[in-house]
């Protein structure tokens, strides 16, 4: 935002490059081979639903598209609402690349429909060799990933593990550099 935008009160949002989402596909190779981290076969996209008919039409159209393209690869889609009023579209499938493609399809349709600002994040679920669950969360507005590792207990996170993951992934993923923006998602349903 330049000086004139500040003075005139204009707000211009930077649209992060869409293919930064796909970085996780290439990073997944490193996850599997070097770090022993495998996909749990599920990914989700989180957005704020609007009650307009137009929005509902786009959402059901997206679900159809994912079901259609995922038919061959076996990607299923499921929709649910959470206590914060956000909608989760959960994609399940055995091939990780198909999950990424599916997530991208949903986000593209929403953005094409003009509802890009409704998008919150995408969540990819993984597990390590000790079967501990860990997530990589992609923030659409920042165009960057950050790790989230829930720990046992009520709303606990394993910050040390998250920082180690950040160091391990290196430059493979565009990681959010500001640690104050590593917001957790409590109660992830995948």
């Amino acid at each position, binding site marked *: 935002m330049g000086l004139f935008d500040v003075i005139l009160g204009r*707000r211009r*949002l930077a649209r992060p490059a869409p293919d930064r989402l796909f970085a996780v596909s290439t990073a997944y190779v490193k996850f599997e081979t070097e770090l022993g981290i495998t996909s749990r076969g599920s990914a989700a996209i*989180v957005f704020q639903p609007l009650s307009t008919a137009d929005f509902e039409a786009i959402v059901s159209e997206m679900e159809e598209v994912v079901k259609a393209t995922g038919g061959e690869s076996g990607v299923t889609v499921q929709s649910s609402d*959470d206590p*914060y*009023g*956000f909608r989760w579209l959960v994609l399940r499938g055995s091939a990780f690349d198909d999950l990424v493609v599916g997530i991208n399809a949903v986000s593209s349709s929403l953005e094409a429909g003009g509802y890009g*600002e409704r998008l*919150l*994040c995408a969540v990819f679920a993984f597990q390590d060799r000790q079967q501990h669950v860990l997530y990589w*969360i992609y*923030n659409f*507005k920042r165009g960057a990933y950050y790790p989230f590792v829930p720990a046992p207990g009520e*709303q606990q*996170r394993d*910050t*040390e*593990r*998250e*920082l*180690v993951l*950040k*160091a*391990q*992934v*290196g*430059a493979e993923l565009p990681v959010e550099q*500001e*640690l*104050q*923006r*590593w*917001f*957790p*998602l*409590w109660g992830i349903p995948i």
Partner: protein
Amino acid sequence: MLLTLFLLGLVYAVLIGVLIAAGAGAVTIAVIAGVLFLVQFFTSDKIALFSMGAREVSPQEAPELHAIVERLCVQANLPKPRVAIAQTAMPNAFAVGRSPRNATVCVTTGILNLLSPSELEGVLGHELSHVQNRDVLVMTLASFFASIAAFITQMGFWFGGAFDERDNNSGPAFIVVILVSALVYVISWLLLQALSRYREFAADRGSAIITGRPSALISALYKISGQMQAIPQQDLRAASGELAAFYIVPPRAKQTLASLFSTHPPLEARVAALQRLEAQLQGTA
């Protein structure tokens, strides 16, 4: 570090010149300062522990704490220091002692309740690095000459008043002595702060080497530093309301002048250095 040491040496040289110019009072000053230096050297650890209300604990009273310290000492090849606990809710940990053989490591009950075992290990590794680097000795020596300068300033005031009526020529000379001493003291104090900040980075590095887990120390630093700078607990969905409305980048407090006076580097600088170490460990640097 080298620049700071050089500048400190320069300060000492100026100081010696002033001491010579001060004449007869120099011997008295040196003797008094020397005695006080020895007192400071031998009793500063007891004074520090007493002021914090710390009490030494035995392995039976605090078995986990002693176990962590023992493991770290084996790793760092240090003799095991005394362990003390201070009863206060403020999270803090410090190490005192003039040499590794006469050291005490103290933690507060606040930090014991706040941190997980691996984070506590990171913090204790930092404190033991201070012991290993003999930071108490280094800082005492460095501050020794600063205290001599302070004494000259006081002596100058005392002598300046006595000689005023009898010998007008020596009046201005003593004023110069006072001013120079005061300037020396201010400069050396600022350099001491810079030296202290460097030692903190060195202790962070030492902790990463001893424990092999720099990220645990990062996590501990965030927890100790408080909410404003911490990795958030607030859910993304709860936070996104404000973010969506304003998209203001969080303000970064400019720390230029304040940082001159602080004994510790800013949190972000420490975290950045530790993250570089972690990246080196993981082979992605």
